[in-house]
C-alpha cells in the first residue's frame, strides 16, 4: 500500500499525468453518474423505446448550449396537448341530439429568432362509427388567419403540417414551418425571412357525431435545439448514449486490458519457469498470434455470429492472451528465475506453482501497470472501430454507435457537427487521459527512461 502511494506521489510530479488522472477521474465519475442516475433498463428504454419516448423531440436538433455561442435564440420545442392542463382551451356545444361542436384553441408565445424545424399535429378521437371532423386554422400575432385544411379524424391521426405540399404552395413556396411563422414584411421586402414574434393560435373547429364521441389534439412545434447533446436522425436524445457509453467503454477497456495482460503475464511466467517444450510452444503460438489479423477476425465473428459486446470482449481477450508482450515478460522472468531467492525457495522445497505464483509473478508485477493503462484506450477504440463498421452491440448505446449513426447519415456532409464531435471528444479524452498516465507510469517503472 505504501508503495502504491509512493507511485502515486511520483506520478503527480508529471504535469501531463495529473491532467490524465483528472480526465480519467472525470470519466469514472461520469460513468458512475450514468449508472446511478439512469438505471440500465431506463437507459435502454430511452434509447430503444420507440416513437412514444422520443416523438416529441425534434429531429437532428443541436444541443441547447450552442445558443450561448450563436447569440440569437434558437427555438425550443413547444408541445400543446388538449388532454393536459395548460393554456389549451376546449369549447364544446351541443348542436343537436348527436352532433356537437368540439373546438380546441391552442395558443402559444413564440419568441425565438429562428424558425421551428417541423410542425406535427396529432389528432385522436373516440367514436363508435362516425368519425369526428376537424377544420384547422392558424392565427398569427398580426391577426392573419391561414386555413390548414380539414379532415375526418380516426382513432389516431398524424397531420404532418410541415410536409403539406398544398399548404406550401399557398404560403408562396415557403415550407409551412417557415411560412406560418414568417414576418410578412421580410418576405415582401425580399430580405432574409425572419419569424414574427408574438402569440400564435392553432384553432381546431371540431364536430362530433355521436353522444360520447370526443376529439383531442396535440400540437408539436419542434424546435432546433434539444437537451445537453442534441438529438439524432430518429429524434433520440444523444445524451443517453453519451452517458451510457461511458461505463460501457470503460468496462470494456478495463476488462479487456485486465483479461489479456493477466493471462499473458501468467503464461509468460509458467513458460519461462518450466522452459523446454512448453516454453517453445508458447513462443511459437505467440509468433503466429502476432501476425493474425485481429480486427478482420472480430469482423467475421460480428458478421456471422453475434454482435454482443461481451462475446466480442471474450474473443478480444482470447486473441490477446498470446500477445507479443509475452516475449517482454519472459525475458524479465528469465532474469528473476536466476535470482538467489528463487533458488532458496526451490531448495526448501516450494512447489513449482508456488514459486511461479507467489515468488516470481509478484516480483515483476509492477511492470504490468503501465502496459495495462496504455492498453485500455486501445480496446475502447477497438469497440468504436467495430461499431463504426456497423458491428456494434445491437442493444447497448455506445459512443462508437453514435459515431456510426452520424457517419451513415452523412452528418459531416449535412453539417450536424455536434453529432460527430460529442462522441469523438469523449473517445479522445479517454484515449489521451489513459495514454498520458501510461507514459508517465512508463517513465516511473523504467528508470532508464526517466532521465531521458
Amino acid at each position, binding site marked *: 500500500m505504501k508503495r502504491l502511494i509512493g507511485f502515486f506521489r511520483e506520478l503527480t510530479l508529471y504535469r*501531463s499525468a495529473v491532467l490524465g488522472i483528472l480526465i480519467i477521474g472525470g470519466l469514472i465519475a461520469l460513468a458512475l453518474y450514468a449508472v446511478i442516475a439512469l438505471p440500465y433498463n431506463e437507459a435502454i428504454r430511452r434509447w430503444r423505446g420507440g416513437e412514444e419516448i422520443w416523438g416529441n423531440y425534434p429531429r437532428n436538433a443541436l444541443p441547447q448550449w450552442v445558443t450561448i455561442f450563436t447569440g440569437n435564440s434558437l427555438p425550443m420545442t413547444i408541445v400543446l396537448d388538449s388532454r393536459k392542463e395548460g393554456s389549451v382551451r376546449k369549447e364544446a356545444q351541443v348542436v343537436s341530439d348527436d352532433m356537437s361542436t368540439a373546438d380546441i384553441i391552442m395558443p402559444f408565445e413564440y419568441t425565438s429568432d429562428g424558425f421551428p424545424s417541423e410542425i406535427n399535429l396529432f389528432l385522436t378521437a373516440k367514436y363508435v362509427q362516425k368519425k369526428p371532423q376537424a377544420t384547422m386554422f392558424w392565427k398569427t400575432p398580426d391577426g392573419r388567419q391561414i386555413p390548414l385544411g380539414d379532415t375526418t379524424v380516426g382513432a389516431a391521426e398524424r397531420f404532418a403540417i410541415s410536409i403539406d405540399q398544398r399548404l406550401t404552395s399557398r404560403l408562396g413556396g415557403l415550407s409551412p414551418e417557415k411560412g406560418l411563422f414568417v414576418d410578412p414584411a421580410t418576405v415582401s421586402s425580399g430580405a432574409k425571412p425572419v419569424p414574427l414574434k408574438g402569440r400564435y393560435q392553432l384553432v381546431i373547429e371540431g364536430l362530433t357525431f355521436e353522444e360520447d364521441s370526443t376529439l383531442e389534439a396535440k400540437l408539436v412545434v419542434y424546435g432546433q435545439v434539444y437537451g445537453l447533446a442534441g438529438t439524432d436522425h430518429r429524434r433520440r436524445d444523444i445524451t443517453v448514449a453519451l452517458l451510457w457509453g461511458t461505463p460501457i467503454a470503460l468496462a470494456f477497456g478495463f476488462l479487456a486490458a485486465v483479461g489479456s495482460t493477466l493471462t499473458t503475464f501468467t503464461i509468460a511466467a509458467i513458460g519461462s519457469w518450466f522452459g523446454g517444450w512448453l516454453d517453445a510452444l508458447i513462443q*511459437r503460438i505467440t*509468433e*503466429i498470434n*502476432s*501476425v*493474425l*489479423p*485481429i*480486427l*478482420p*477476425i472480430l*469482423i*467475421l*465473428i*460480428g*458478421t*456471422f*455470429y453475434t454482435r454482443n459486446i461481451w462475446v466480442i470482449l471474450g474473443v478480444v481477450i482470447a486473441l490477446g492472451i498470446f500477445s*507479443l*508482450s509475452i*516475449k*517482454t515478460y519472459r*525475458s*524479465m522472468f528469465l532474469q528473476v528465475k536466476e535470482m538467489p531467492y528463487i533458488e532458496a525457495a526451490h531448495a526448501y522445497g516450494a512447489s513449482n506453482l508456488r514459486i511461479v505464483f507467489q515468488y516470481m509473478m509478484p516480483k515483476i508485477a509492477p*511492470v504490468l501497470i*503501465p*502496459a495495462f493503462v*496504455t492498453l485500455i484506450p*486501445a480496446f475502447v*477504440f477497438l469497440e*468504436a*472501430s467495430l461499431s*463504426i*463498421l*456497423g*458491428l456494434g452491440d445491437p442493444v447497448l448505446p455506445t459512443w462508437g454507435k453514435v*459515431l456510426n449513426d452520424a*457517419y451513415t447519415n452523412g452528418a*459531416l*456532409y449535412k*453539417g450536424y*457537427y455536434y453529432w*460527430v*464531435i460529442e462522441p*469523438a471528444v469523449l473517445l*479522445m479524452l479517454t*484515449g*489521451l487521459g*489513459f*495514454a498520458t498516465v*501510461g*507514459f508517465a*507510469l*512508463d517513465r516511473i*517503472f*523504467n528508470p*532508464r*527512461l526517466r532521465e*531521458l
Partner: protein
Amino acid sequence: MATETLAKRQWALPRIGIRVPDTLARIVKYVLYRGVALFVTVVIGVYLTVLIANMGGYLDTIRISQIREQIGASILGDPALQTLSANELRANIDERVAIEMRRLNLDQPFFLRSINYLTDALTLNLGRAEFLSSNSGSRQVRLVLLERIPPTLLLSATANLSLFFTAIFAALFLSRRYGSFLDRLVIAMAPSSSVPAWFYGIFLILIFASVLHILPFGGMVDVPPPESMPQYVASLLKHMILPVGALIFHSIFVGIYNWRTFFLIYSSEDYVEMAKAKGLTSGAIERRYILRPTLPPIVTSFAFTLIYLWQGAIILETVFAWPGLGRLLYQAISSFDVPVIVGNVVLLAYLLVTSVFLLDIVYALLDPRVKVGGERRP
C-alpha cells in the same frame, strides 16, 4: 509499448559485423526459416478464418446454392430434357446436385471439407461474389479483391515511408537537442498515438472538407476522373492529403519519441564516447555508432506498426471512402457478401505476412547477429 522498449534495450549490444564467407548462406537460412514460419502462420490464420466462417455452415450453403443454380440453369436450358415433367426435372436436378457435391467432396466430413476450403483460400481460389463486382463487372472474388490492392498500397506506402524517414531525421535532430522546447513538445504529444488514425481522419474531414471546403470529403479521384494524366495525378494527390495526414499525425509523435529514446540510450554508450574522443564528426558518429546498432530493433518495431496499419486502414478507408481493401470489407459486411468477406480476410492475412517477411529480410541484412551467426534473436 513501455515494456516493448524495455525488451529491446535488453538485447545484447550488436557485435560489429565481421565478414565471414558464409554470411550469405546464413542470411538465406534465416530468411528461409522465417519464410516457413510465416507460411505456417498464414495457413493457421486462414484455417481459423475458414473455421469461423463455416462454423454456421455459411460456406457450405453458398457452395451448394451456387451448384444448384448452375445445374438448374443447365438442365432448364437443355432442349433434350424439355419433355420431362416438373417433378422429373426436379428429381434430375437433385440427382445431379448430389453427384456434383460428391465430386466436390461436399458430402465428406467437416474436417476434410475444411481442408478443401483451406487449399482453395490459400490459392486465392475464392469463388464468386454474391453482390459486389469489380470495375470491369466481374463477379470473381479474386478480381474484385485484386483491383483493390493498388489503392490500399498507395495509401499505406506513402504514409508509412514518409512517416519512417521523417521520424528518423526528426529524432536524430531532437536527440542532439535533448531537453529543448521541441523535444519536450514531442514527448508531450506522444500520447496522441493512442487515438487511431481514422479518428483523426474524422476531425480532418470536419475541418478541411465540411467547414473550410478546401479538400474533398473522400474518394480517390474526382468524379468523373480527369482525362489527362497530370490532372489525374493532381486530383489523386488532393484526395490523398487528408488520409495520409491522418495516418501520419497518428504515429509521427510516438515514432519520433521512440526513436529519440533509442538514440539517446545508444549515444550514451562507451563506444560512442570513445568515437567522440577520437574526434570523429558528429555525422559519422550518428551513422556508424548510433544508427547502425539501433536499426534492427527498430525494423522489428516497424514491422509491428505495419501490422496495425494494415488493420487500421480498414476503418480509415471506410471513413475516407478510399476504394481499397478496407472499404471493400466494409461494403462486403454491409451487403453480407460472404465470399468477399472471407476472401478479404485471407488477402489481408497474406499482405500482413508478406510485409512482415520483407521486413525480416531487411532485418537479416541489418542484424550482425544473423550475419555472423551469433545467438538467435530473442
